[in-house]
Each structure stands twice: as structure tokens, then as C-alpha cells.
């Protein structure tokens, strides 16, 4: 009797053969002990292969994946941001709503709200040591994990995925402003002096709060791709603080109900300088 090929034997063990082929393999097994042993080893290896990834099924699914599956990343963020901005407009009356208020939320994808007093506010807060204690106390580990994850998602995305950004780089011009999607004085941090080109923005939900992620790319590998995240926060103000997630450096701070972060593989010195630049630009608005 002809010994079945490995392909046929595996298909037999997987229940993929028809009745006639099954019978042929059964007959071959019945009269060949070495073939039986071989089949048993294949069965044992299949059990191992299945068991190798069983732990993944028992792990809690990250919040960001559930949010992504629910489609909450863009829609809910937009709704929350619009409601947020409407409240500010009511509170500020006829004054331009972004003056003096660091409304670092996103409207239809992108509003880098800085406002006057952005840097001054940071300078007026408590000592660096005290603030770093606050950072530790209110660690926001999940928040940092999430923004690091979103950064990697951006870096890993192919060109087609980047085209799905909520607000492409070319959609932040006059047309968007005239359509009321963006305020007239809208300013995007210009990081071209750092050879960083703005690629677009995404609306996210991080720790249940709306956030905007701005993407910058560069040919300078020492600087690498960079993301700038701004989000709502209920925590107290914090001075710029450094943290790491795997190979990513993160410089984050909080000011007047908003959290900001620069994320990338760039050296922390770069991030500090870029932070100063962004703070200066927002202060100049």
C-alpha cells in the first residue's frame, strides 16, 4: 500500500478529505506503525500550535480597540468637541472664543487652540518638583500608552491609510475656514523649521475624552515622524514632563483643562526645543 504524502496525511487529520481518500489513509495507517507515530506527532504539534496563542483570548481587549470597533474614534469625538465649543461660545459672548482660552480641542478635525497666556500660565504654576509629583500621582499611564499606540499606528500605516485621515493637510485652508469648520484665526504649529511636514490630523477618543492627533513627517531620521496630541483633561496643570514607552520619547504637559504631548523617537532635546517652539507659536496667536 502506498504511503500517503504529508500533505494528504495533514488534510486527513484536518478532516478535509473525501470519503474515498479517508479510507485510503485509514488503511495505510492500519498497517504502518511509523506512519501512525508520525500522525500522532502531527496531532501533538497541532495542539501546541493552538495552545501557543490561547493566552491572547484571555487578555482584556484594550479600550482603544473596542472604541475603534464601535466607530467612536471620529464620530463621538466630533460630537463632544462641537458641544464643548458651543459651551465656550456661550460663555464668552461676542469675544473671539479662542482668545485667552486654551481651547485645545478639535473642530471638524483640527483646531490648535493655544491662546494668550499659554506659556505664561505654565510659568505661573507651582514648582517643577511639585508638578512632577502631581504627574506621578496622576500618572495617566493609560493615556500615555494610548498616545504611544496611536503614534505607532500612524507610523505603521501605509500611504493608503494616511489618506483616511479625518482632516488631510490640504483641508485646513481658507475653504475650511469660510465654511465655518475652522475659526478665522486658526493656526497650525508650523514645524517646517524642524524639517517636519504636516500630513493631517485624526480625531481620537483617549481615556474617554476627545483628542486631536497631528501628524508630521520628515526625512531627518534623527527626528523621525512626530505626532502632537492635544486632548481634554480634568487634571491640574503640569509642566512639560518626560516619559518613555518602548522606543518612544514622550514630552507631555497640561494647561487649563487640556493635555498636550509630543511623541516620537527623536531625542528628548529635540522634543524640548519643539515644545518651546510650539508654545511660542501658540502664544503668538
Amino acid at each position, binding site marked *: 500500500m502506498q504511503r500517503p*504524502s*504529508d*500533505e494528504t496525511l*495533514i*488534510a486527513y487529520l*484536518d478532516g*478535509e478529505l473525501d470519503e474515498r481518500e479517508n479510507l485510503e489513509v485509514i488503511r495505510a495507517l492500519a498497517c504502518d506503525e511509523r506512519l501512525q507515530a508520525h500522525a500522532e*506527532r*502531527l496531532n*501533538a*504539534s*497541532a*495542539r*501546541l*500550535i*493552538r*495552545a*501557543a*496563542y*490561547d*493566552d*491572547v*483570548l484571555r*487578555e482584556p*481587549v*484594550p479600550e*482603544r*480597540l*473596542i472604541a*475603534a*470597533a*464601535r*466607530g467612536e*474614534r471620529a464620530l463621538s469625538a466630533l460630537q463632544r468637541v462641537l458641544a464643548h465649543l458651543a459651551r465656550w461660545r456661550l460663555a464668552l459672548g461676542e469675544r473671539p472664543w479662542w482668545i485667552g482660552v486654551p481651547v485645545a480641542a478639535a473642530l471638524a478635525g483640527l483646531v490648535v487652540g493655544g491662546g494668550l497666556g499659554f506659556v505664561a500660565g505654565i510659568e505661573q504654576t507651582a514648582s517643577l518638583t511639585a508638578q512632577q509629583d502631581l504627574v506621578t500621582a496622576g500618572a495617566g499611564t493609560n493615556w500615555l500608552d494610548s498616545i504611544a*499606540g496611536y503614534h*505607532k*499606528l500612524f507610523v*505603521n*500605516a*501605509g*500611504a*493608503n*491609510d494616511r489618506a*483616511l485621515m479625518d482632516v488631510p493637510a490640504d483641508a485646513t485652508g481658507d475653504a475650511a475656514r469660510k465654511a465655518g469648520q475652522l475659526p478665522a484665526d486658526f493656526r497650525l504649529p508650523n514645524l517646517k523649521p524642524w524639517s517636519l511636514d504636516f500630513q493631517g490630523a485624526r480625531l481620537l477618543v483617549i481615556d474617554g475624552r476627545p483628542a486631536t492627533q497631528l501628524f508630521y513627517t520628515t526625512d531627518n531620521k534623527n527626528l523621525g515622524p512626530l505626532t502632537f496630541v492635544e486632548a481634554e483633561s480634568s487634571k491640574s496643570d503640569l509642566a512639560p514632563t518626560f516619559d518613555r514607552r*518602548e522606543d518612544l520619547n514622550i514630552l507631555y504637559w497640561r494647561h487649563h483643562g487640556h493635555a498636550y504631548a509630543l511623541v516620537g523617537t527623536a531625542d528628548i532635546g529635540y522634543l524640548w526645543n519643539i515644545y518651546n517652539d510650539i508654545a511660542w507659536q501658540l502664544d503668538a496667536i
Partner: protein
Amino acid sequence: MSAPFNDQLVAVLPRLRRFARGLTGSAVEADDLVQAACERALSRAHQFQPGTRFDSWMFRIVQTVWIDQLRAREIRRTESEDEALGTGTDEPARRVEARMALREVQAAIAVLPAEQRLALLLVTVEGLSYREAAEVAAVPVGTIMSRLARARMALLAKLGGDALRGSTEDAKAE
């Protein structure tokens, strides 16, 4: 977007994560891959045909996004994950050995050619039939059959006898 579609997507997340973990060999990259796949699925929900297998449809999206990413860049594996496993714990020695055996299996799968890894994960781990796996991978059934056989035989050669001796039950006992 209908609620049942989102519900189906949430329900299949654990399996998508397992599938993606096998493809990428990295927990972080796997979750990034699943998130990208979810976003793509939601943007193309109208293409899903009711009455067909939702999990197969999602596996296909995951593998499509994965291939896009492979083409777009060089995959970097996270060494820190390997360092974090199996060291410095109070686990009984037998359990650690079982865990090590499973790590050995994962490592062996990780070095398989991508198309063999895909066939192995779809059929042996996810339990799809050859025909279903062929539809996900967009190749003939015979191709799946031969890729799977090559993968299984390569693993058998790599794992040898030690890894196959009774470690499955120990691992499950965790």
C-alpha cells in the same frame, strides 16, 4: 452603521488579536494592526454580505492590512516582549517550562514564510476550513493545502520531541 455590525466586530476582537499576534509576532504591532483593520472594516461595512462568515471577512481585512504594512516598511520586532516573559517570576518550574515550550512554538511560527504562517494561523489556530482559508488568502484551495503542509512539517522539524511531549496539557493548566 448598524449596531449589529459593531457588535459583531467587538465580539470577534479577541480572535482578531490572536490572529494578528500570530502574523506579527508582537503584541503592540498586533493591536495596531487590529485597530487599523477595524477602521478599514467600518469604512467598508457596506461590502460585507449578510449571511457570510463575519470572522472570515475580518480575517481577510486583517491580512490585507498586514500585507500593506509589510510592503510599506520593514517589520521591527519588539525584543522587550521576549525579555519580559518567563523571567523573574515565582511560577512553578513545570509551568515555566510549559510556557517556554509555547514561546518556542511562537518563535518557530514567527520565522515561517509569511504565506505559510497565514495558512497555518487560519486553519490550525482559527479553525477555518481549507476552502474558507483559501477565500481569505485569495488563493486556490490546493495552494492553502501545500502551504499548510510545508508549515506543519517545518514546525515539526523545528520543535523536535521535547516540545511535543506533554507540554500542551501543562500549558493549558495555567
